[in-house]
C-alpha cells in the first residue's frame, strides 16, 4: 500500500486496484488452489492414500503412457511442420507471406473436434469425398485415423501454428546484420542457417516446443473423437469417461487424475518459461528490416510446395466436411442430383438442441468477453501504474488457467462450486459453472493484449488528464478506455472466438439444457449423425473465419503484440 502510494500519489487508484485484484485472484487462481487441496487430502485430513491408489491403477498408467506418446510425437509433427514454415517465411523472400501466415493460423483457431471430424471425412470407407471421386476403400476397411497414429498426426497439425508463431517471433528478433556479417565472412546458405540462425533461435524453438506439448497433452477433442472409437484412452478422455459414466461420486478419484495431468503440464510450462527467459539475451541490435534471403530459382518450387501443404492440411479436410454436410444420408456419394441442404436446415433451424447450443455458446462467449473486458481494462492499467508484490505475483500466475489443460480447470471448478460455502446451493449443472470456468480460462486471452497496449501507452496521457482535474473514473473513461479500445476489442474478439468453439471445459460441465456448440458436435458425431455434425461444424468454421478476417482487417489499428498471429 505504502509503495503504491509513493508511486502514483492517488489513494483511490490503489484502493480500486486491491478490489479488482482480489476479484481476479478469486476468479482465476482459487479453482486451481481448491483442486490442489482436494488432491492431497482425504475427507479433510492431509493424506496421499487416495492419490497413491489411483496412480497405481493400470488404467491410469495406461492413459498416462498414451497421453505422453500422443502428445510427445504430436509435438514432434508440429515442430517439423511449424519450424519448416517459420524458417522459410521469416528468412526468405517468399511472396504472399501475409496470406500464408493467415492460413497457417486457421488450424489453431478451428476447434479440435472439428479438425478431427473433417479429417475423418476425407479418409476411411464411408468418406463422401472419396466415394464421390470413386477411390474409397472397400466397406469394412478400418478408418485409418481411429488409431494412435491418427491422433498424433492431427495433434501435430492442430498445434503447428504455436511452433510457427513462437519461432517466427524469435527469428524476427534476429538483427539482419548478424546474418549479413556471416555472409560477408564467407558463410553460404545452409551454413549460415545452421551456424548462425539456428543457435540464435533455439530458445524460442524450445519454448514453443514446451508449450505445444502442454497444449497437446490437454487436448480433449482429438483423442475423444479418434481414440474412444479405437479404445485408445488418454488422460483427458479417461477423466471424461469416468465422470460421464459415474457422475460426481468419482470426483475425488478424477481430481487425482486432473492433478496428474496438471503436474505434467506444469513441468512443460516451467520449461517454456525457462527458455523464454533465455531468448531475450539476443534481443539487441536493429531489427527494422526483416530478413529476406533470396531463394533464387528455388523460390517458385518452394512456394508451390508450401501452398500444397496448406491445401492438404487445411482445404482438403474442409472439402470433406462440406461434402458430407451436403449429402442426404451418410454414405451416399455426392452428385449434383443428390446434393441437398437438408442437414443444414435440420441442424440450424429445426433441432431444438442445436438452437439451444447456439444460444448458450453465443451468450457464454459474449458474456465472457464483456465481463473480462470490464475487469481487465482497469486492472491492467492499475497494475502497470502501481506494481505491488501481489500484482507481480498475479501477473506471473494468471496464464495458469489458460495454460493448464481444460480438464484440470473443469474438475477444479466442479470441486469449487458443487457446494457453495455456507449454503446448500450448487452451481454444478447450471450454466453459471461454465460461465465462471470460461472467465477463469480466458482471463489471459483478454488480459495480455490489453496489457501489451497499455505498456506502450505514454503514462503522461493519464497524468495530463490528472493535472487538469480529471478524477480516477473520468481518466479511465475519457483517456484509458478510448486509447486501449482497439486492443480491448481484439482481446474481446479472441475471447469470443475461443469460447464460442470451446469443448474441453464444457464437455465435463454441461448438463441437459446447458449444451454448448462443441458438446453438440461431439454428441451428434457420437450418435452417428455425421452429416448434421458436419453441417454444424462448417457453420462454425465460417463464423471463425469471419471473425479472424475482421481482426485481420483492423490489425493495422492495433498496437504491436495485440493480434496473436502478427508478432
Amino acid at each position, binding site marked *: 500500500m505504502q509503495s503504491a*502510494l*509513493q*508511486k*502514483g*500519489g*492517488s*489513494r*483511490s487508484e490503489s484502493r480500486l486496484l486491491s478490489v479488482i485484484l482480489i476479484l481476479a485472484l478469486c476468479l482465476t487462481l482459487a479453482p486451481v488452489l481448491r483442486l490442489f487441496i482436494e488432491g492431497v487430502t482425504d475427507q479433510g485430513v492431509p493424506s496421499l492414500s487416495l492419490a497413491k491408489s489411483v496412480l497405481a491403477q493400470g488404467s491410469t498408467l495406461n492413459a498416462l503412457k498414451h497421453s505422453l506418446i500422443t502428445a510427445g510425437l504430436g509435438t514432434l509433427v508440429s515442430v517439423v511442420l511449424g519450424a519448416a514454415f517459420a524458417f522459410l517465411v521469416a528468412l526468405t523472400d517468399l511472396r504472399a507471406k501475409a496470406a500464408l501466415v493467415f492460413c497457417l493460423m486457421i488450424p489453431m483457431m478451428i476447434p479440435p473436434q472439428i479438425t478431427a471430424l473433417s479429417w475423418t471425412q476425407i479418409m476411411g470407407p464411408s468418406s463422401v469425398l472419396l466415394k464421390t471421386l470413386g477411390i474409397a476403400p472397400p466397406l469394412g476397411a478400418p478408418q485409418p485415423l481411429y488409431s494412435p497414429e491418427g491422433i498424433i498426426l492431427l495433434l501435430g497439425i492442430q498445434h503447428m501454428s504455436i511452433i510457427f508463431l513462437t519461432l517466427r517471433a524469435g527469428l524476427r528478433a534476429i538483427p539482419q546484420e548478424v546474418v549479413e556479417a556471416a555472409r560477408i565472412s564467407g558463410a553460404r546458405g545452409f551454413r549460415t542457417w545452421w551456424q548462425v540462425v539456428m543457435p540464435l533461435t533455439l530458445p524460442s524453438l524450445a519454448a514453443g516446443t514446451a508449450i505445444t506439448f502442454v497444449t497437446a497433452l490437454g487436448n480433449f477433442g482429438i483423442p475423444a473423437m479418434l481414440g474412444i472409437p479405437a479404445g485408445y484412452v488418454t488422460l483427458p478422455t479417461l477423466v471424461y469417461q469416468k465422470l460421464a459414466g459415474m457422475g460426481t461420486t468419482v470426483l475425488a478419484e478424477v481430481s487425482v487424475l486432473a492433478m496428474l495431468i496438471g503436474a505434467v503440464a506444469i513441468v512443460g510450462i516451467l520449461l517454456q518459461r525457462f527458455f523464454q527467459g533465455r531468448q531475450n539475451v539476443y534481443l539487441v541490435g536493429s531489427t527494422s528490416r526483416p530478413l529476406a534471403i533470396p531463394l533464387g530459382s528455388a523460390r517458385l518450387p518452394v512456394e508451390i510446395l508450401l501452398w500444397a501443404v496448406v491445401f492438404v492440411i487445411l482445404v482438403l479436410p474442409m472439402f470433406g466436411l462440406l461434402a458430407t454436410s451436403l449429402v442426404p444420408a451418410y454414405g451416399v456419394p455426392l452428385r449434383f442430383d443428390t446434393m441437398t441442404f437438408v442437414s443444414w436446415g435440420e441442424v440450424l433451424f429445426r433441432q431444438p438442441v442445436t438452437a439451444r447450443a447456439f444460444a448458450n455458446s453465443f451468450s457464454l462467449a459474449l458474456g465472457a468477453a464483456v465481463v473480462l473486458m470490464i475487469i481487465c481494462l482497469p486492472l491492467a492499467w492499475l497494475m502497470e501504474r502501481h506494481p505491488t508484490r501481489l500484482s507481480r505475483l498475479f501477473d506471473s500466475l494468471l496464464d495458469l488457467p489458460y495454460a493448464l489443460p481444460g480438464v484440470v480447470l473443469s474438475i477444479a471448478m466442479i470441486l469449487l462450486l458443487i457446494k457453495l460455502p455456507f449454503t446448500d446451493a450448487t452451481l454444478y449443472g447450471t450454466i453459471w459453472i461454465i460461465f465462471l470456468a470460461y472467465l477463469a480460462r480466458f482471463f489471459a486471452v483478454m488480459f495480455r493484449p490489453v496489457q501489451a497496449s497499455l505498456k506502450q501507452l*505514454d503514462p*503522461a*496521457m493519464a*497524468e*495530463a*488528464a*490528472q*493535472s*487538469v*482535474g*480529471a*478524477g480516477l473514473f*473520468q481518466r479511465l473513461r*475519457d*483517456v484509458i478506455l*478510448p*486509447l486501449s479500445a482497439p486492443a480491448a476489442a481484439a482481446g474481446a474478439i479472441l475471447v469470443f472466438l475461443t469460447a464460442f468453439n470451446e469443448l474441453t471445459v464444457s464437455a465435463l460441465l454441461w448438463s441437459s439444457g446447458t449444451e454448448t456448440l462443441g458438446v453438440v458436435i461431439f454428441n451428434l458425431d457420437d450418435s452417428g449423425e455425421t452429416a448434421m455434425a458436419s453441417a454444424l461444424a462448417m457453420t462454425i468454421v465460417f463464423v471463425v473465419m469471419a471473425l479472424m478476417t475482421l481482426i485481420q482487417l483492423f490489425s493495422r489499428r492495433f498496437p504491436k503484440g495485440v493480434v496473436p498471429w502478427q508478432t
Partner: protein
Amino acid sequence: MADINITSLGKVFAGTPALQDITTRFEDGEFIALLGPSGCGKTTLLRLLAGFDMPSSGTIRIGARDVATATNMVPPEERNIGFVFQSYALWPHMSVRRNVSYPLEIRKLTKPEIAAQTDAALAATGLTEYADRMPSDLSGGQRQRVALARCLVSAPDAVLLDEPLANLDVALRASMQAVFTDFHKRTGATMVYVTHDQAEAMAMADRIAVMNQGLIQQFDTPQTLYERPKNRFVAEFVGRGTVVPVKAVEQGENQLHAHVLGARIAVESEAQSQVSHVCLRPENLAISETGDLRAKVARVTYLGGKYLLETVSSCGTRLLAETRAKFDVGAQLGLTITTPWAFSED
C-alpha cells in the same frame, strides 16, 4: 496565481535519494527554471509539485494551501496546476478543440462558457484554424501550443513545464521560447520550467535554480549565476570557463588580489579572504604579448565572426579565450587576466 513554498523536501527512490532537503520559495508570477544535468532531480522536483509522486519528507505549499505534508497529500487532480509534458501528452483520440476544452468539461462549466473559454485559449495560442484537426495532423510546434492552450484554459495557479522543447528542432525552439515568454507576460502565471539547456533557461527565466545530485546548488537571476557563481559546479555548468585554484590571497584596501597560475591578479568576490578558486571565462582573458602568462594554442573553433581558442598555459591548465584574429594551432601567445570572479569551495 500563487506562490510556491517548499520546506525540507526530500524524495527517495528505492533507497537512492533523488532530492535532498530542498527548502526554497518561488514568488507569485515568477518564471523559474530548474536547470541541471540529467539525473540531478529537477524532474523529480517538478513531479512532486504536480503531485504525480509523493514526497518522502518535507512539505509543499501552493498559495494558501498545503498540498503535500507528512500526513496529507492532495492528489494532482485537486491541485489546480497546469502541466506541459515533454511528449506533449495530447490525447490522440480527441480533436484539438476537445483536448483544450476537456479541463473545462471536468469542471462542469456550461456549454456556452466552455465554448467561449476554449475559443479564447485557441486564439491566444494561434490555433483557431486548427481547432478541428486531430493531434496527429499537427507539427511538433503546433502540438506544443495545443498542450499550452490546454493548461492555460483552466486558469491554473501554477504552470509546470517538463523539458517542453526537447523534442523540437533548433529553429522551432527559438520561436517557441518567444511563445512561452509572451504567455508568461500575458497571464502572469507562476511558471516552473525544467530544462537541461542553459541557453533556454537564461533566455526565459526570471530566476534559475541550478541543481545537482538532488540539491539546489544556486538559485539566482541568470546574470548573477553567470557572473557570480557560488561554487565550482555552477561555474563550470553555466557558461564557458575554467575553474582554477587560488594559491594565495592578499586583502588590499579596496581590492582583493589572488595568486593564480603564477600571476598576481585582481579578483572580485563575496567571500573576501576565504576564496579558494577563480572562474576564468573567455571575457576575463585578453590576448597581449605582455600578458600575465604564456600559453600555446591547442585547438581553434570558428564561432562565426570570432574564434574560440583552446589554449594550454605553461603550467598545463586549459584556458578558453575568444578572439577576432585567427591563430594557428601551436602558436604561442600571452594572456592577461582581468578581474575574474573568485569563490570559496571546500
